[in-house]
């Protein structure tokens, strides 16, 4: 039982990392990025290809993260310009629809490029033989990376000037501008960063078990659930929600079954919307 619980916490950290980017992008700019998960998968693919080309794990991961960061900045600089011209609900709606289109484009291109019903990206996996030992190293590495990334993020937001600047734009944009902070630059930066964080999750997941090229939508839905439950715009909320849902996920999958588990996670988001729309730690009414 303890093992399941611990697994849940590690998974929860990954959920949190997945949700953090999405919730930040929403909190900063009122944008819902449905291409979040697809971008993450792109990162994993770049890593897999780099390693196949002979690069070391470290280099490959760096390449993957940079690629996704660049993709994020590209998106922000082009499509999102049209979105930023709108305000309030129309902005959210348009962002939702445009990023949905982007998700389809990315997923479609990936399926076209790797048509074998989804390329299994398995990083750092020696095939069959020492599978037992191999897998454990892989998941240990993944856990370490998740925990490390989480800690760095928390330190960034709590302690660094840049991190505080990001939080300030979420809490009071005019106040931020009066302090010399450029909200548009912050938004662009975070858009790129959020993609990188999601990519990190995809990469670490693919170290323990293969993910398919169509996993993008699943990641996005997961991120959306974590974001809603944690509270739109709250970094701490995303992690808290992530850990809770991670534990629920592992315990439920272990004792009950996959489909019910998915329904439970979805229900968590639905109930949050109905009963406490501001989420666990969010600020909106």
């Amino acid at each position: 039982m303890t093992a399941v619980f611990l697994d849940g916490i590690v998974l929860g950290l990954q959920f949190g990392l997945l949700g953090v980017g999405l919730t930040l992008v929403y909190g900063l700019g009122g944008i819902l990025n449905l291409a979040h998960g697809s971008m993450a998968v792109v990162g994993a693919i770049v890593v897999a290809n780099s390693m196949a080309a002979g690069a070391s794990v470290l280099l490959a991961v760096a390449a993957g993260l940079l690629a996704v960061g660049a993709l994020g900045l590209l998106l922000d600089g082009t499509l999102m310009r049209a979105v930023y011209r709108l305000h309030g609900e129309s902005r959210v709606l348009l962002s939702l629809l445009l990023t949905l289109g982007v998700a389809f484009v990315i997923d479609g291109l990936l399926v076209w490029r790797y048509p074998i019903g989804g390329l299994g990206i398995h990083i750092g996996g020696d095939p069959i033989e020492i599978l037992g030992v191999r897998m454990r190293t892989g998941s240990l590495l993944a856990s370490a990376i998740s925990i490390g990334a989480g800690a760095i993020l928390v330190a960034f937001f709590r302690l660094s000037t840049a991190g505080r600047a990001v939080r300030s734009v979420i809490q009071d944009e005019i106040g931020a501008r009066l302090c010399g902070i450029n909200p548009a630059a912050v938004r662009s930066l975070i858009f790129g960063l959020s993609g990188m964080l999601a990519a990190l999750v995809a990469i670490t997941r693919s170290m323990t078990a293969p993910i398919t090229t169509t996993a993008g939508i699943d990641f996005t839905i997961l991120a959306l659930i974590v974001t809603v439950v944690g509270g739109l715009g709250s970094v701490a909320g995303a992690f808290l929600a992530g850990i809770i849902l991670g534990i629920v996920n592992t315990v439920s999958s272990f004792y009950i079954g996959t489909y019910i588990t998915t329904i439970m996670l979805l229900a968590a988001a639905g109930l949050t919307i109905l009963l406490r729309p501001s989420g666990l730690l969010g600020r909106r009414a």
Partner: protein
Amino acid sequence: MLEVEDLSAGYLGDDVVHDITFSVADKAAVTIIGSNGAGKTTLFRAVCGLLPKTAGRVMLDGVDISGLSAHRIARAGLAYVPSGRHLFPQMTVSENLALGAFPKRPDPETMAVVLELFPRLAERKSQPAGTMSGGEQQMLAVGRALISKPKVLVLDEPTTGLAPKLAADAYAALAILQAQGLTLLIAEQQVPLALSLADYGYVLENGRVQLEGSAEELENDPEVRRAYLGIA
């Protein structure tokens, strides 16, 4: 230090303020007085970059800042404390103050000076800004603006919502700052307080400058006395 020429600005195509010209000399304290709706807030927002201008020019320390966005103007040395304060509610007093120095980290000496000026803030360093009283929030807003060691401190009705004693305290603090050489621009409805601090003043009415003069001249002007000081 700050020169505004023929500034016009407004909302949705209709100008609220027209052809405003005024200047604030280095180390001087200037006040803009006028009743509600005269256009003081609109004027300040336009000067500080939060509102686009339809005409006019703004020069800060000889540099034309007319077309700059609000955050660039802030970094250029124009610190604006709006009447809405715009603090960061979930951040502590220290964090709010620290951000005033963005992009740099706050200078410890300046921080000490600010906390000395506002001892109440020093007592509440770890308190979230959103839980403080109106007077304390006002102090925090001014403190945050001061951390950046601005060239000009612009305040929009700093005594709004403050009890008379706190308002007087606020102006006492401002007087200390002026004595230390800070250039001040204050929009104020409470004319006696404003004139007690300012060297020079402008009277804004219906979006135009109706009158200007030194503090004494304004205090003795019959129109000002009748309209704003309640003296027949």
